[in-house]
């Protein structure tokens, strides 16, 4: 089978480590370089246990080697400053930060601190194949989705795609519960183990950055609130949707099966029996799977939509590898076959 060379810029963080873990196990990938300013010279296994025994060592992030695909797992604001340099060494660049997710410079002025390379925003392709597969084939610049937005979009997308929601009149409330890896390895006092354990802690009561990304792809504004809970990796989004006209369970199944029946990385979990009747982060931890489900609440004219992902995988590194597989014409599920553990503890 075909082999492509790949490098990871910013490989010492959680997301960088997850990318490395996936690429090291990917049948079509040969890792040529992993950069990290803080860990240069150290073996990748010393930072990321799943890679123990690998002779790969972190290198300085300057004078990058040329590769087929470069994954950037750097904090927000880094890729936009180095994108030209990245394209000098790689044909395809997959950026996991927010630097190329939104379409217009105005959005970056409003939600971030402006943009250093707005000319790339036009051509950047959103990495979520379930809603952007046709544009990903052959794309040069791929922008990984945000984890909260990915969970929310996966849940709501079929409702818009099949006209159950038009995106104007309806009220949509999104209430998300996330793990601590979203804040990255650093984080201040609030993310020390004594303070972060066992919380149900509202931390972005009005999460506008996520709303901007969700609105861009669903075409509707959502009222978003995020809570930190006692997980490390995992995101659960519960969307409360009030459609303008009544809808039946049959309509819902038609919409969701229509969008996801043939998708390799979306599983339906809407009622039924057993312990795991609805989507749950534990059930998809470590996998690139998204679980989606719904419940109809006629007395409140409401549809309750549940979606669960592993924010490190479907919400970040897994999505990036999936998008790269599509862009480079590889087998879509290559390197992403793990389907989770049961029973298992907090993800």
């Amino acid at each position: 089978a075909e082999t492509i060379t790949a490098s990871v810029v910013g490989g010492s963080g959680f997301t960088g480590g997850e990318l490395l873990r996936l690429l090291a196990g990917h049948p079509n990938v040969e890792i040529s370089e992993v950069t990290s300013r803080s860990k240069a010279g150290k073996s990748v296994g010393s930072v990321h246990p799943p890679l123990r025994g690998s002779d790969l060592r972190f290198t300085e992030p300057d004078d990058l080697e040329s590769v087929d695909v470069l994954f950037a797992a750097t904090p927000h604001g880094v890729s936009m400053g180095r994108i030209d340099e990245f394209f000098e060494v790689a044909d395809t660049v997959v950026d996991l930060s927010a630097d190329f997710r939104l379409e217009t410079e105005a959005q970056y002025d409003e939600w971030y601190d402006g943009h250093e390379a707005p000319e790339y925003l036009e051509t950047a392709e959103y990495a979520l194949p379930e809603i952007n597969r046709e544009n990903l084939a052959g794309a040069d610049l791929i922008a990984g989705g945000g984890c909260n937005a990915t969970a929310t979009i996966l849940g709501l997308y079929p409702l818009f795609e099949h006209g159950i929601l038009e995106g104007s009149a309806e009220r949509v409330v999104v209430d998300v519960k996330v793990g601590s890896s979203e804040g990255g390895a650093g984080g201040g006092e609030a993310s020390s183990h004594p303070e972060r354990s066992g919380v149900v802690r509202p931390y972005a009561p009005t999460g506008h950055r996520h709303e901007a990304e969700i609105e861009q792809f669903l075409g509707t504004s959502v009222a978003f609130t995020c809570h930190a809970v006692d997980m490390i990796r995992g995101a659960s989004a519960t969307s409360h949707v009030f459609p303008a006209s009544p809808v039946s369970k049959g309509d819902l199944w038609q919409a969701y099966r229509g969008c996801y029946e043939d998708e390799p990385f979306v599983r339906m979990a809407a009622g039924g029996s057993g312990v795991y009747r609805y989507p749950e982060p534990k059930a998809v931890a470590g996998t690139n799977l998204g679980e989606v489900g719904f419940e109809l609440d006629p007395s409140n004219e409401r549809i309750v939509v549940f979606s669960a992902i592993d924010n490190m995988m479907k919400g970040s590194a897994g999505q990036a590898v999936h998008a790269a597989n599509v862009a480079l014409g590889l087998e879509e599920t290559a390197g992403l076959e793990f389907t989770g553990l049961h029973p298992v503890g907090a993800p």
Partner: protein
Amino acid sequence: MTECVECGAEVSLHDDLEVGEIIDCTTCGAELEVVDTEPPVLERAPELEEDWGE
């Protein structure tokens, strides 16, 4: 005693107050900056928006 600009509750002040000092309101937790001491005047301190990461 003076009133919190955020929630209107009474804010207890210690006596050797200094201009520029930051006092947090014990009712709503808002951070208030002392802009005058005779009589004591408090304004909402520019609180740096905590970066929630992700």
